[in-house]
């Protein structure tokens, strides 16, 4: 019962009993069944075999008895078998089946058969065997032969009772079943016993594991078993102990770790705080670094510019040759130092991705040209031909960063000149096919210099590396130029590659992407034919000649290119007329140039048309030629020739020089007209003074509003030109005050601003006319004439800023670009001083002046940057201020503001 209650229900106990008992039972039953059936079958078989054997033997023995039918014989024969307990009858039958003899009388039926048979009848087994004649051969001759088959003489039938056999079978079954029962009983008892010894500990262990799972780690198994189960019990106990121990250990470790974590978190918090402070310090330091960089650049540049400026001044004094040479060296080294500082700063900014490209409209042709012009002097000094080839498909205007492109060009051209001792530097610009809307421009600088060894080419674009360390010693430089170039080109989605062969020259090929510009900055008619019909072009240098021919190709009906003086002389004889022109390219080689100069007077003498003398640099002394020749139709220009200049030159009448003609076109004022100019910017004031002077006026100058009021009162001017933004008293206030005592004097306000409120304020103050900067001399003079009633007519509507393309040509007023540059430098210096002194007022003032200047002379890049500077100063953003200042510095010092102002 307990088994049923505890074990048979489920679990291991049932399984143990099953695997123990079931196979055993099955096997036992099968064996018992097999044993019983075999024994019974054996018993029956034994009976049958016995009966058959007995019957066979009897048949063999009974042959004589049956033949002779002698009953006593048969009786004697049957005595043996009949003594067996189960043999109940022995019967002898003759061949006809008739009974001869039988032992007892039993009722059964017998059907004679020719073979031994046995069957059961009435509880008897009957075994019948035919008695066959076993004859002998007695005839010698076939004459006596018998044709006989084996003859059946009779039958012997033995009747065996089946009762004893059945009794034996019963005994077998009974005994086997008793044995089986005992076996099963014993097996069951043994299985139950063994099962218990096996399952009890396992069940206990299972319960223990359950307890352990529930967390009762103190629970232990009773170690009562031997062998494997015993090992298991001990093992589980050991495991439980270890788990308990490790649990305790873990708990303590977790406690410790938690404490440590807490401490760490506290520490981290402290650290975080410290980091925060450190970051603040770093930010401050970074800001300080920026400031330092700005200051350093300024601090380095200010003295350098002073050095340069004073060297320039020193040069103008009477110096001995030695002193002049020293001045030149000072100037050269200072410029180099300045360039190196700029390079380093550029590189640093590129490295930190601090440079962002601008996207403003510019002319790529002019941009590169301005870079070439800057280097023209040094090329000329070295006697190098500097050639500029521009393909026709270069768009006049694209969107991009002209300043950076010029920087790239300046760098590459500068390098080319630097590393070329003889020959030429060819700069070419062409457009490449591009898949998208962008304009792909290829800019190539080819020189005939020392070249670069292939092994050194790989290191060429590495920072601070030059092709050869000896180059640094020989040519100087920071070694950053090409790195900066490459970085800038990458920013322009371009690339740079080079072809070079040592000793033969180098070709740098740059490609860059620009966006297409909206419209042409200036309408040029360079493409159309001019009135010059025939043009003789002379240049000894093949590429230079080619470039010039290409340049003039579209503008002239016929071109006669020639490379020798002899050829030129021939052409001059053939072509001579007012509509013909001569373009003479003076060789860059000083020796050849000297020779050419000797021939020039003779060559030019009989020529009626315009002559353009292209010199490598303006330093070339050609005044002698022009003076001696007294050729009013000679125009001297520097190489390379600008397309616009060519066009202008070709468009001029052959009879008069371009300059006199241009000047004569300007309107004049009635001589003695008193003009008061109120302008705080020195350069602007100078320009206005010159314009007025040229126009025949008497000028009085005021540098601020206050002074303007005083001078107006003193001089009673006929007309007043009033700058709006002036220190102390601005133009509006000054107008208001002047109007009080000079109510009718025309006052023209000059402003670069486009704010309508300011416009209104000026009108309210009594300004007659607002003229927007940049100043157009013709327009201004015409307006003045109208206001002064020196000319009848109505005033044209006020022009909007920048809507007129014609700015004043400084050269007309003996104001060279150098004067402008000097003025710009002055402004820059003032700005830098203001920045150093953190003088916001000064910064704003000079930023404003610079904006005015830029506006006046149509310098968009400069104007943009200076207005950015004004904005930055207004926002008190030091970093931006410094950035704008730095940009201004670059623009001004490297003449990069001139991209669009070149022809003004």
């Amino acid at each position, binding site marked *: 019962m307990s088994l049923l209650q505890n074990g048979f229900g489920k679990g291991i106990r049932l399984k143990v009993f099953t695997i123990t008992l079931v196979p055993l039972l099955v096997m036992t039953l099968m064996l018992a069944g097999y044993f019983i059936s075999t024994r019974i079958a054996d018993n029956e078989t034994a009976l049958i075999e016995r009966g058959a054997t007995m019957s066979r033997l009897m048949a063999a023995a009974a042959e*004589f008895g049956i*033949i002779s039918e002698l009953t006593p014989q048969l009786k004697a024969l049957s005595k043996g078998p009949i003594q067996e307990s189960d043999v109940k009858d022995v019967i002898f039958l003759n061949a006809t089946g008739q009974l001869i003899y039988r032992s007892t009388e039993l009722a059964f039926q017998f059907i004679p058969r020719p073979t031994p048979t046995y069957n059961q009848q009435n509880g008897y087994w009957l075994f019948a065997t035919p008695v066959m004649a076993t004859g002998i051969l*007695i*005839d010698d001759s076939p004459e006596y032969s018998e044709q006989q088959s084996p003859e059946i003489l009779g039958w012997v039938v033995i009747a065996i009772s089946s009762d004893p056999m059945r009794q034996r079978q019963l005994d077998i079954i009974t005994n086997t079943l008793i044995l089986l029962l005992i076996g099963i009983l014993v097996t069951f008892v043994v299985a139950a016993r063994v099962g218990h010894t096996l399952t009890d500990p396992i069940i206990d262990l299972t319960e223990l594991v359950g307890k352990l799972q529930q967390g009762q780690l103190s629970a232990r198994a009773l170690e009562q078993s031997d062998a494997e189960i015993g090992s298991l019990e001990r093992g589980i106990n050991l495991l439980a102990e270890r788990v308990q121990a490790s649990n305790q250990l873990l708990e303590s470790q977790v406690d410790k770790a938690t404490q440590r974590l807490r401490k760490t978190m506290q520490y981290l918090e402290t650290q975080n705080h410290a980091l925060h402070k450190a970051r603040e310090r770093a930010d401050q330091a970074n800001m300080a670094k920026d400031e330092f960089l700005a200051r350093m650049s300024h601090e380095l540049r200010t003295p350098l510019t002073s050095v340069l400026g004073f060297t320039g001044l020193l040069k103008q004094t009477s110096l001995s040759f030695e002193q002049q040479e020293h001045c030149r060296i000072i100037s050269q080294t200072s410029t180099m130092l300045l360039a190196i500082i700029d390079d380093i700063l550029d590189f640093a900014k590129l490295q930190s991705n601090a440079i962002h490209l601008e996207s403003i409209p510019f002319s790529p042709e002019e941009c590169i040209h301005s870079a070439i012009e800057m280097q023209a002097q040094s090329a000329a000094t070295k006697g190098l031909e500097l050639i500029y080839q521009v393909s026709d498909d270069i768009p006049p205007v694209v969107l991009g960063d002209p300043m950076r492109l010029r920087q790239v060009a300046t760098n590459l051209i500068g390098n080319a000149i630097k590393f070329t001792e003889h020959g030429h530097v060819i700069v070419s610009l062409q457009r490449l096919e591009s898949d998208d809307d962008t304009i792909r421009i290829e800019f190539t600088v080819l020189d005939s210099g020392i070249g670069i060894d292939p092994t050194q080419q790989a290191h060429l674009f590495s920072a601070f590396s030059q092709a050869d360390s000896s180059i640094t010693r020989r040519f100087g430089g920071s070694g950053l130029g090409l790195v900066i170039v490459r970085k800038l080109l990458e920013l322009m989605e371009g690339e740079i590659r080079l072809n070079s062969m040592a000793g033969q020259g180098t070709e740098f090929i740059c490609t860059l992407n620009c966006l297409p510009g909206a419209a042409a900055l200036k309408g040029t008619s360079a493409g159309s034919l001019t009135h010059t019909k025939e043009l003789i072009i002379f240049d000894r240098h093949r590429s230079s000649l080619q470039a010039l021919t290409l340049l003039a190709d579209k503008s002239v009906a016929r071109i006669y290119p020639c490379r020798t003086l002899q050829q030129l002389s021939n052409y001059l004889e053939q072509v001579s007329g007012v509509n013909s022109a001569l373009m003479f390219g003076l060789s860059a080689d000083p020796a050849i140039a000297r020779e050419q100069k000797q021939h020039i007077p003779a060559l030019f003498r009989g020529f009626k048309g315009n002559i353009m003398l292209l010199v490598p640099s303006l330093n070339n002394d050609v005044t002698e030629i022009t003076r001696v020749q007294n050729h009013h139709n000679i125009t001297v220009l520097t190489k390379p020739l600008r397309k616009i200049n060519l066009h202008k030159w070709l468009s001029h009448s052959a009879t008069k020089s371009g300059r006199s003609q241009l000047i004569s076109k300007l309107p004049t004022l009635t001589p003695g007209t008193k003009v008061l100019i109120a302008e705080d910017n020195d350069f602007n004031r100078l320009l206005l003074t010159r314009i007025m002077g040229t126009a025949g006026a008497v000028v009085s100058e005021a540098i601020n509003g206050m002074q303007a009021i005083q001078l107006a009162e003193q001089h009673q001017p006929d007309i007043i030109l009033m700058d709006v933004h002036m220190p102390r008293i601005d133009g509006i206030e000054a107008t208001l005050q002047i109007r009080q005592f000079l109510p009718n004097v025309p006052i023209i306000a000059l402003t670069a601003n486009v704010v309508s409120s300011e416009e209104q304020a000026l009108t309210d103050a009594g300004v007659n006319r607002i003229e927007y900067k940049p100043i157009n001399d013709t327009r201004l003079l015409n307006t003045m004439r109208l206001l002064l009633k020196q000319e009848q007519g109505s005033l044209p509507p006020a022009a909007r800023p920048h809507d007129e393309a014609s700015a004043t040509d400084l050269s007309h007023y003996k104001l060279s670009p150098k004067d402008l540059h000097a003025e710009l430098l002055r402004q820059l210096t003032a700005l830098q001083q203001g920045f150093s002194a953190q003088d916001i007022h000064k910064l704003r003032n000079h930023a404003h002046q610079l904006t005015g200047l830029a506006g006046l002379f149509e310098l968009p890049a400069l104007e943009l940057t200076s207005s950015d500077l004004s904005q930055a100063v207004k926002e008190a953003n030091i970093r931006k201020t410094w950035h704008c200042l730095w940009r201004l510095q670059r623009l001004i010092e490297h003449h990069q503001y001139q991209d669009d102002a070149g022809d003004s």
Partner: protein
Amino acid sequence: MDKCGLTRQPLNCGARIMLSLFGWLCIIKLCVASAAAQALIVLSNEQQPYQIVSREIILQSEGPVPQSISLNNLHQKPSGYLQQFSPIITVGSAATDYVFAKAPAGSQIISSFIPQPGYRRLLNRYSDRLQSLRHTALFLDQPYYRHIALARAVQPSARSLGVILGPTTGKDLQALETASRARGFTLNHDELVSNDNPLQMLQPIMARSDIFLALPDQAIFNRTTAKWILFMSYQQHIPLIGFSRSYVDAGALAAVISTPEQIGRQTAEILNRFNESGALPQASYSAYFSVITNPQVARNLNIELPVPSQLEARLKEVEQR
């Protein structure tokens, strides 16, 4: 087992074939030479005893070599085939039966190697036909006197001779009694009726006799009973005189027989005489015979048995008297 010295030694198989081939060659040759007087030997079948008889006839014949043919081959021949031969020697009952039936009138027929009862049956069957034929016979079996003489020679002191007659031998009782008397025996006899058990009948006869004579009658002496008759003779210590070599081998004390060679030889003599005189003798038993004994049985029965040659000599001596 001793063999009779009068018989020819059996030849080995190869020699026999050679001889046979030689014989056939002679026959073919002589057939071409003198076909008119040629004898035909018709064999009942091709078993060895018939072959031996035929060979012996051919070897011993002095006139034209007889031609030999088996009954099976003869069946293939045209109906007038037998006409060209004289005499026709039949070997065995079947050949005799056929020739009696088929032989043309006037044919001379010598029936050899045939049991006397069988010949008698054929004579009865073809009694009409035999009117037109000349015929004689040489029997295979032995005359009763010769058996009885052997019984006397074996047991000189015996007084009663047991014998059972069957359907075949029943009518010879008179001859038996005569011969028994002549040899000094009292004949104990009984005759088997159809349903009688021969063994049951034999037992009292044997019990009363000093020596028992087995006669060739299949109703009594057959494969089944022969063994048990021997068993009974052993049981009762009565010596049994058999009628064949096989029976002597099986357990009979002695027997007198004519071998095929002896039959052949005598047939050849008849043929030779016929060829010479054209006369056919009366049907008779073979003059040549052999005695066979079983010394082992003699020892068991405590009989001192003379050697077969002595017995043969004694028999011949008796016959010559």
